[in-house]
């Protein structure tokens, strides 16, 4: 009998929907049906059925081909390579559970590595802005239950977070927003008329790259000053009208995305958005939220903040203290400046998602990829180690875009012999300790350590 598993979390985008229902085969090895998920989530679950999924590590041979090797050999190679490197770079964690992110901390300390995650090419500038200006935010339920004005600034959830608008932001009927979309005024600020812009009541199609000026204009009119007739391509009257809409909201919610973080000024665009949010709180209630891309990309920010005090770009090469300064200790800058001599890519695809030049720089040195699937990075790597898929055949904690921890379930049994990220990292760490004649530091007795389990025990 196939089993229907409910309350499953979707390991794709930052919406981290956990209302998915997955029908799996009797032996829990195949996904048969996926309910409630968007097209991307559905594809993701079905992709786990792919019979060609790698089951053994593969090492590149002198002739350029890849050859399967046992896990022990892969672990040994990874441990030795990282110990020998002057400064390894560990990057990724777009699709890993928090248990894995925690376990990698030991390896990073032990090998004096730089620890970085996908935020570095995504919402990293949002972190920089949070460092400078704070983050007046809330959980998505607050937006759903209260927000009567919703602003999408430089983000396009209809494409990047397909169920965001129906679960949290535009359509749902919340506790104080019983009329759903009827009760919400939606503003979209984007240089293109995106599918999200089409849903909005007001679309401000600004000149690309001039968000900072437009934020400045909003803040200036909110303080009662005049502004030029046109700012960033938007007429003064439109700016004033939009500012009034935000100011007169009962609860104004600003979501922002890559349109702010990938463009000129980067962090300062968000920095200014946060200033606007602060200002609006003098008039009404206003919150702001980054549209984080992956289902658990908020996770490394959290886990590493409590372990090292920084969310990303963490240089642990000193051994006794962490140092962080994006622009210096960030993956792309390190690569372009040839500051690292070993690259470990975990649960992300630098091969596809970095600009090609940093990839070429990183490829000068050992290049290790840990990922459940084949991807661009794995196909140029020196070693590819497959692991279980967090949220599909491995449970664990993930942090949704609003930093709400959600305990994801597993729906499938993992492929036999394939470890989870956490198990793999623990084994690599143990091997490193063996090689350096030191005792592993588990904080607690080894026998007390436990790996994630799916079901809550009441």
């Amino acid at each position, binding site marked *: 009998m196939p089993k229907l598993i409910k309350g499953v979390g979707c390991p794709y985008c930052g919406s981290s929907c956990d209302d998915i229902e997955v029908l799996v085969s009797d032996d829990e090895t195949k996904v048969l049906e996926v309910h409630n998920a968007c097209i991307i989530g559905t594809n993701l679950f079905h992709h786990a059925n792919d019979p060609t999924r790698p089951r053994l590590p593969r090492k590149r041979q002198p002739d350029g081909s890849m050859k399967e090797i046992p896990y022990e050999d892969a672990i040994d190679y990874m441990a030795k390579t990282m110990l020998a490197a002057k400064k390894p770079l560990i990057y990724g964690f777009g699709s890993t559970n928090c248990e894995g992110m925690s376990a990698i901390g030991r390896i990073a300390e032990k090998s004096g590595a730089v620890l970085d995650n996908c935020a570095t090419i995504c919402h990293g500038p949002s972190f920089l802005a949070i460092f*400078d200006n704070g983050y007046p935010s809330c959980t998505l339920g607050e937006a759903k239950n209260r927000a009567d004005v919703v602003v999408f600034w430089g983000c396009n959830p209809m494409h990047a977070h397909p169920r965001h608008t129906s679960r949290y932001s535009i359509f749902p009927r919340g506790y104080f927003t019983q009329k759903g979309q009827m009760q919400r005024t939606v503003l979209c600020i984007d240089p293109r008329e995106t599918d999200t812009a089409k849903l909005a009541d007001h679309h401000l199609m600004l000149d690309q790259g001039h968000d*900072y000026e437009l934020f*400045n204009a909003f803040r200036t009119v909110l303080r009662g*000053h005049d502004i030029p007739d046109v*700012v960033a391509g938007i007429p003064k009257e439109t700016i004033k009208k939009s500012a009034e809409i935000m100011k007169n909201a009962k609860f104004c919610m600003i979501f922002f995305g890559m349109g702010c973080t990938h463009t000129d*000024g980067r962090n300062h665009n968000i920095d200014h958005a946060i200033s606007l949010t602060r200002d609006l709180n003098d008039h009404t209630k206003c919150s702001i939220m980054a549209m984080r891309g992956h289902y658990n990309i908020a996770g490394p920010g959290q886990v590493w903040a409590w372990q090292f005090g920084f969310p990303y770009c963490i240089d642990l090469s000193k051994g006794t203290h962490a140092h962080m300064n994006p622009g210096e200790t960030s993956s792309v800058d390190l690569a372009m400046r040839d*500051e690292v001599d070993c690259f470990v890519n975990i649960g992300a695809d630098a091969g596809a998602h970095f600009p090609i030049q940093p990839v070429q720089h990183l490829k000068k040195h050992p290049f290790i990829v840990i990922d459940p699937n084949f991807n661009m990075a794995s196909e140029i790597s020196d070693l590819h180690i497959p692991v279980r898929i967090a949220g599909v055949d491995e449970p664990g904690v993930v942090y949704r875009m609003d930093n709400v921890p959600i305990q994801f379930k597993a729906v499938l049994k993992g492929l036999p012999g394939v470890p989870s990220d956490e198990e793999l990292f623990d084994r690599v760490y143990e091997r490193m300790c063996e090689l350096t004649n030191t005792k592993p530091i588990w904080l607690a007795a080894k026998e007390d350590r436990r790996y994630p389990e799916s079901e809550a025990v009441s």
Partner: protein
Amino acid sequence: MATVTLKPTKVPELIFEGYSITPDAFAGKTAAQIAALPGHEGKFVLKLGEFFTVSGNGGETAADTDIVIDGDCSRVKYIGSKMTAGSVTVNGNADMYVGGWMKGGKIHIKGNVDSFCGIQMEGGELLVDGDAKNHVGCAYRGDWRGMKGGTIRIKGSAGNDIGTAMLGGTIIIEKDVFIHVSTHAEGGTVIIKGDVEGRVGGQMVKGDMYVLGKIKFMLPGYKKIGTVEKEVDGAKYTFDHYIGDLGERHGKSKGQYVYANLYLKAAA
């Protein structure tokens, strides 16, 4: 006065963290002792002597110690960081954090510098003959206390983030700047002799900015209040005087709001 000369002998494979290259660290040491001072390359601690030949002993104090680096330091970070007195001269380029957190003394880089030069500087002089990359005289991430004092002069051009969260001191860029000048600043003076793309004085609370070239995109939060004549870096010009950022909070002095000032050279 004693001069210590470092001659680069080897380019680091990665980057060498030359945090020991300061008059403070060299003072009271012989050439051999200086060559034994530490620096990091990745996780390994190496000696200065592995990358430089050292000649000359340090002076008795930092103030008596002049350092000359005779060659390129494109891959050496932290030159002159945290120094309090004395001087450092580099006959070539230098990497990140030149003069970071410096309190006194003088640094002269004859080539270009990378980003974060003069970060959270408190005093002294930093002179760069070439260009600077980004974040000149800015604050460390998250700190609202940026540059507090001293002078940075870049004879070439600079990138983005000049004087972010600046509280005092002077930054002079003799050529062009890309974007973000004095963002979040609450004091200090920035002088730009070339053109700026935009974002001059955003979120700025207090302080002065002079631009002798053009600003391509003015922020809407700046308002022209008059024309003034002012002397800047030894020459007099007529400026359009703007105040701002009107979108930002401002303190009051004697019942009047105190704004940041932007002096933009008036069209001839």
